[in-house]
């Protein structure tokens, strides 16, 4: 009679502190975050806002590279500096106030200009999970981007000027297994039931059960029975058209029991079956995106350096081609539905067991590959997770920021296409680039001292960029005027918005969960618009 000893004792201090975010990325996501090491170049308001929202959830460590001294303007817009910081190194001061947010996070400050590090100690950047930079010159951006591309370290370049801001993610290849889609497509296999599912479905006779049980039959069974009945007079085909689906609905209506007056009894499970006709009768198939992944050269030409993701893709391909008969492993998730506990649990176990068996086959294939390649082993749990999410695998193949800056053929035509539309968000991109060009030519932001005087020079920069991409000049100078009005000002709330977004994207990259922006994000705080472009 004694109750079992508590299996899941009270949480520890750390899981309590992080409880609200653990519900989003799990303990494994948190572990990845705690192993992450972020590098921030330049502790501007934007830079510190990014780091704030990475330190709070508990990243492993942070290194700030900044050789600037703190000015009054810095203090006016940056929360992680105080009046006494004036004249001191900006990175060390900001680090002090940022680390104080979360004692679990390690912090380092490097008081050297990034150019110097790039020249003298480029290996410095190798140890970081993500490098984030703000307020860099055109030249440094390109040198740093090229170097980080070469050593395969993810890079996020951020800007904040007036009401405008942007960030650009440079990442060679980023695979996401847990994308957490809002609406996960169900995987029920009603068109191709595996043996244990077919046995279960066929053994049930919904006509025979009493009224109470009738109202507790899962809609999956009801739908299956309706299709079976329909197939008798339809040459065993599968209902696809709207008309055919309506015929299925009519059959389901016919299943509903009637009371003594011949009036249909309201049965929730049959209502659910009727609602499911349109979505649950989609035939089981291998999604094109997943097929492309499985047959991409990274998955077909494995070598010792291949990542676990590609090894698992290769094993999955083996499964699809053999045991899976062209289908992915069963996902093993049953959506909640009106049903008796017995029916539901039995059905859930049928799906779960098949999913486990399918994953087991994939795991054996993974082990074979690992043995052949002599590379690090991959855990069974990882393979299970991979199979569970096989329908939603996601891959980003990124592009180099240095290439973007050179405005070569494909980048130029891509930008030109949006400018012709015209898409004002792409105009903002040109303005941000033009302001950067202005800064490298004049050693200050356009409009820094006096807006009017810089308009023509900024216009020259815009024209240069537009001619590089073979576009005609802008019909109006509105946006050039506005950029000169900003005069390089960093508005705290604009930086705080971007800071939240960039921190978020960095966490997605570190935890390898959720889909990051691919790859350029523009924010216009004046019109409250955002856009994503893929360079």
């Amino acid at each position, binding site marked *: 009679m004694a109750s079992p000893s508590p299996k899941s004792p009270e949480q520890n201090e750390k899981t309590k502190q992080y409880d609200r975010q653990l519900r989003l990325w799990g303990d494994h996501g948190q572990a990845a975050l705690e192993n992450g090491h972020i590098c921030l170049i330049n502790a501007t308001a934007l830079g510190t806002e990014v780091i704030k929202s990475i330190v709070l959830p508990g990243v492993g460590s942070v290194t700030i590279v900044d050789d600037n001294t703190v000015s009054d303007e810095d203090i006016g817009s940056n929360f992680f500096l105080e009046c006494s910081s004036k004249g001191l190194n900006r990175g060390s001061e900001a680090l002090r106030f940022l680390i104080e947010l979360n004692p679990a996070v390690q912090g380092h400050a490097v008081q050297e200009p990034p150019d110097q590090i790039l020249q003298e100690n480029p290996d410095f950047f190798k140890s970081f999970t993500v490098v984030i930079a703000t307020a860099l010159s055109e030249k440094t951006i390109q040198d740093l981007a090229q170097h980080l591309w070469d050593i395969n370290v993810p890079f996020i370049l951020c800007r904040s000027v007036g009401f405008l801001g942007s960030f650009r993610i440079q990442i060679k290849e980023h695979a996401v297994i847990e994308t957490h889609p809002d609406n996960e497509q169900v995987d029920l296999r009603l068109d191709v039931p595996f043996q244990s599912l077919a046995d279960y479905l066929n053994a049930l006779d919904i006509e025979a059960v009493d009224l109470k049980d009738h109202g507790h039959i899962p809609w999956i069974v009801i739908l299956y029975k309706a299709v079976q009945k329909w197939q008798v007079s339809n040459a065993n085909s599968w209902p696809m058209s709207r008309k055919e689906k309506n015929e299925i609905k009519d059959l389901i209506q016919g299943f509903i029991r009637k009371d003594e007056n011949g009036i249909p009894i309201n049965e929730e499970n049959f209502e659910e079956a009727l609602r499911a006709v349109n979505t649950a009768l989609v035939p089981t198939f291998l999604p094109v995106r997943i097929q492309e992944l499985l047959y991409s050269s990274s998955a077909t030409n494995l070598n010792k350096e291949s990542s676990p993701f590609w090894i698992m893709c290769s094993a999955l391909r083996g499964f699809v081609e053999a045991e899976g008969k062209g289908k992915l492993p069963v996902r093993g998730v049953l959506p909640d539905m009106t049903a008796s506990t017995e029916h539901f649990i039995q059905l859930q176990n049928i799906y779960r067991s098949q999913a486990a068996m399918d994953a087991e086959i994939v795991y054996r294939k993974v082990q074979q590959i690992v043995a052949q390649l002599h590379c690090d082993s991959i855990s069974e749990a990882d393979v299970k997770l991979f199979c569970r999410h096989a329908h939603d695998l996601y891959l980003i193949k990124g592009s180099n920021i240095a290439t973007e800056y050179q405005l070569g053929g494909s980048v130029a035509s891509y930008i030109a296409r949006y400018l012709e539309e015209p898409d004002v968000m792409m105009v903002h991109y040109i303005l941000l680039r033009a302001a950067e060009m202005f800064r490298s030519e004049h050693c200050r932001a356009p409009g820094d001292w006096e807006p009017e005087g810089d308009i023509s020079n900024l216009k020259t920069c815009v024209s240069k960029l537009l001619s590089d991409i073979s576009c005609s000049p802008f019909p109006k100078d509105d946006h050039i005027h506005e950029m000169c009005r900003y005069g390089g000002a960093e508005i705290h709330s604009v930086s705080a918005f971007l800071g939240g977004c960039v921190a978020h994207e960095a966490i997605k990259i570190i935890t390898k969960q*959720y889909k990051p922006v691919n790859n350029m994000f523009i924010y216009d*705080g004046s019109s409250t618009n955002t856009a994503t472009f893929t360079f």
Partner: protein
Amino acid sequence: MASGETQSAEYQQRRWQHIRKLLERSGPFCHPDFEPSAEILDFIMNSCKVLVVGAGGLGCELLKDLALMGFKKIHIIDMDTIELSNLNRQFLFRKNDIGLSKAKCAVEFVNKRIPGCEAVAHHCAIQDLDEGFYRQFHIVVCGLDSIVARRWLNGMLMSLLQYNDDRSLDQSSVIPLVDGGTEGFKGNARVILPGMSACIECTLDLYPPQKTFPLCTIANTPRLPEHCVEYVKVIQWAKENPWGATTPLDGDDPQHVGWVLEKAQERAIKHGITNVTYRLTQGVLKNIIPAVASTNAAIAAACATEVFKLATSCCTNMNNYMVLNMADGVYTYTFNAERRPDCVACSNTTRVLEIESDATLQTIYDKLCEDQAYLMKSPGITTVINGRNKTLYMSSIKSIEERTRDNLKKKIADLGLFNGADILVADVTTPNTITIKLKFSDNIDVDMSR
């Protein structure tokens, strides 16, 4: 002395250099009323009073954002005290602060970090403060997690509206409301000009319906781990009263959660259900909404930008509702939420409730709770008969509930209500009593073919 003052003036000029550029220069996208001048910065620093409602995930960010946008006269209200699970995002609090007032702690931190900031804390419920308090602010910005509190605050600002003799709105009585909300990786920010643009009550349908589990499922056909926890919470706790009949279930008490967990696990094992964990149990008991620093930072910043625009006119405002989704890339969508011409809160008209003449009071009660236009929690209904107030039903006070309970079963005509009669409704979702006019639907020709 004189040189010290000059120095400090110059210092102020340099320190606020960034926002001065926006305020002292005009641009092609400014609000038509905008005239650049140094006085605007002076206004936001020395005159403009902003109220921040909530000192949680959004409130901490808002306080910091506004203080760094030049606002000094900021008030902040929060009745809560700091908990360990706040620290992953409410960045003005530390472990040493656990148990202290959120509002006071936040204010102390920001006033110390940003010299000149004169933030004031109110450690109380929003309902504890009256019209006179709310009327003193130029702008209210709200970062709450409770829909009921948000609706109450919205109702308060709407009740401050005044109308001229020709029924036109007195513009000087309008206090703009900027509202933000987050849930996990999603959020929204909006600007409400009371009496002029859609208010919270106009757009109640934008809130997702509350997830509830039917009692029969919990009791008879549990399928999910959540069902097992709900069973222990709703049925087993009251039956067994493990800490005595006077101790209610407390989702923050680890012993309580542990007890529920154990019982829920027993029930789960009995039914073949898996995955009843401590985290899940507490999530169900407390209805926990996931939260992370980054989403809060972005939404609060979007709100702060709008407060700055409202106070300075340096740019046109968002029109008027932005949704943000950071789960798949970063996606935003801004749209113009439309007013309800018959909104109970902001339309200055009397709402009409159509009802059949032989309906019971229960029907009215249910409509007030379930109809998308009302979604009330526990409406108290009174009416005026022959110049005297008569309480028809009220559940908030036990003795009155007992006295009026039978009325629910009575037909409305038997209670003295007639076609065109006014009922007065009070609820936690609004600070005001709402007048609703009854209209008997069977008194008019109803086109049944539609």
